[in-house]
């Protein structure tokens, strides 16, 4: 059986890479995300309201969809593309930012705009809204990045007959300037042999220092 090769996008605090090609940028960390958004996307101002986890996930997913041939987000709603993400930190970055607003009883200013991002699956919702995806959206938190575990659960997503493809990814963020993500698209055929899918995901991880 031939190896499976998946197109992917990788982003960390210093790098952004689309299928092996580095994107040019001058800034790093959170500022880099905004710079890349302006250079490559630019038509979704809600981006600036997002927390870091969502910004990274949104950017990586949009760059990936463009790289695999999408001209622009669909006009029609579709249910056949699921969004399934994994990570270890979940919303830790947003949790810390929100905790700061309630830590001091004398300076107590809980904000709904910050609180909503203390759920890691919000990034799956942001991607669904952008692309009009009405299929499954799921966020799984794991102990560590494990290609076999991810491949197993991605293959499980195809138990839903409606699902033809899974926009799959890894996204972590501990601080506003510290994040790591990769995104790829997995079809039903890609997921047929879990070991082969795991090897393809392992290759992405090896190429992206995850």
């Amino acid at each position: 059986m031939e190896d499976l090769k998946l197109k992917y996008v990788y982003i960390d605090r210093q790098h952004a890479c689309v299928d092996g090609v580095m994107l040019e940028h001058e800034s790093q960390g959170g500022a880099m995300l905004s710079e890349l958004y302006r250079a490559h996307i630019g038509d979704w101002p809600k981006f600036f309201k997002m927390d870091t986890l969502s910004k990274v996930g949104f950017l990586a997913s949009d760059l990936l969809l463009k790289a695999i041939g999408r001209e622009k987000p669909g006009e029609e709603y579709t249910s056949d593309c699921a969004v399934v993400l994994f990570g270890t930190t979940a919303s830790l970055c947003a949790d810390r930012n929100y905790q700061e607003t309630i830590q001091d009883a004398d300076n107590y200013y809980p904000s709904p705009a910050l609180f909503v991002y203390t759920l890691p699956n919000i990034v799956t919702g942001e991607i669904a809204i952008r692309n009009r995806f009405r299929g499954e959206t799921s966020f799984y938190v794991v102990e560590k990045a494990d290609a076999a575990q991810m491949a197993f659960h991605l293959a499980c997503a195809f138990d839903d007959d409606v699902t033809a493809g899974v926009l799959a990814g890894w996204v972590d963020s501990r601080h506003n300037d510290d994040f790591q993500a990769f995104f790829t698209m997995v079809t039903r055929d890609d997921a047929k042999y879990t070991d082969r899918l795991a090897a393809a995901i392992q290759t992405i991880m090896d190429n992206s220092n995850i």
Partner: protein
Amino acid sequence: MERIVQCIADNVVSPLGLDSASNYDSVKSGKSGLKRYDGIAMSLMDRELVESACLENGIPAARFTFFEKMVLLSCIKAVRDSGIDPSSDRVLFVLSTTKGNVSLLGNTAGFPEERVLLGVAARQISDWFGNKNSPLVVCNACISGVCAQIEAMRALMSGRYDYAVVTGADEQSPFIISGFKSFKAVSNDFCRPFDSDRRGLNLGECAATVVLKAADSVQDGWQLLNGAIRNDANHISGPSRTGEGSYLALMEVLRNCTPHHLAFVNVHGTATAYNDEMESIALFRAGLTDVPVTGLKGCYGHTMGAAGIMESILSMYAVMDHTVLATRGFAQQGTTYPVAVSPVNRTTDRRQFIKLLSGFGGCNAALLYRLNG
């Protein structure tokens, strides 16, 4: 040959009791765990009761956080009742939670900082049972408990595992309470699901566990038939005005049954203006107007990561007792499309039900259960 998935054991730990049967009896007799705390209605675990239950079960008090203790208490009895060997590599542990140990951010209470990571918290539980598989944490906001069961179902059907221990839990803390208050989603009074005078949700604490088993043929007992997760693709913190995701999830699970076989739909029914209105639209669009509807938030509040599992367990007990449970707090229809909700217990002889949930991030989930035999 396609495997089927059964529920073989369960347990609910809540302010209404430390096992499923006592919870069901309390709810059926009209009790609620909701009380007023500093002017705000919530359903909170009695900390001393949890500590003494841990002592009885040999759980070392200093080794686990309060959240982990709730999870362990709910797991231990369910695992014991199931008779499975939890240390087997054929057993998968799945944890459904929205915020886990987030209260440690405000005060680590002597625990390592990394314990706030949900995967690390889940590992404490699987380690207790000597299970070496990587535990999976499902973190899909308020629908996590149904998603966790759906994912466990798929893992069992794949043949990789024979059993799954699926626990849902959340601890209430200033973090969550202040957040929901900032959304103006919280009612100070006891919540009133689907009522014309509903004014928001109450928060609650609970831990609930189901032990699922893969079987090669249909056997007597509870079977998880079909589950679906769908996104509204509309808004990250408000439900779809057309109930899109809930409607699509309902339609998917209805492929495996017809409405007149349903004892009831156990809804999310948070008692916020938007949620209950959205669910009424989704139920109407799915052709479920005549199917009894029941919600448990008036007895437990919104128990977040636990909701999907605890509410499924209570629904199983209700079907076995030929009962559609009352929706506590409801008095008068208050949604655009009327739903078949009732303030009193009703009887039923049907043996299937749907558990429906929706949550932030625009996500919705439905799961269909059937009692065989």
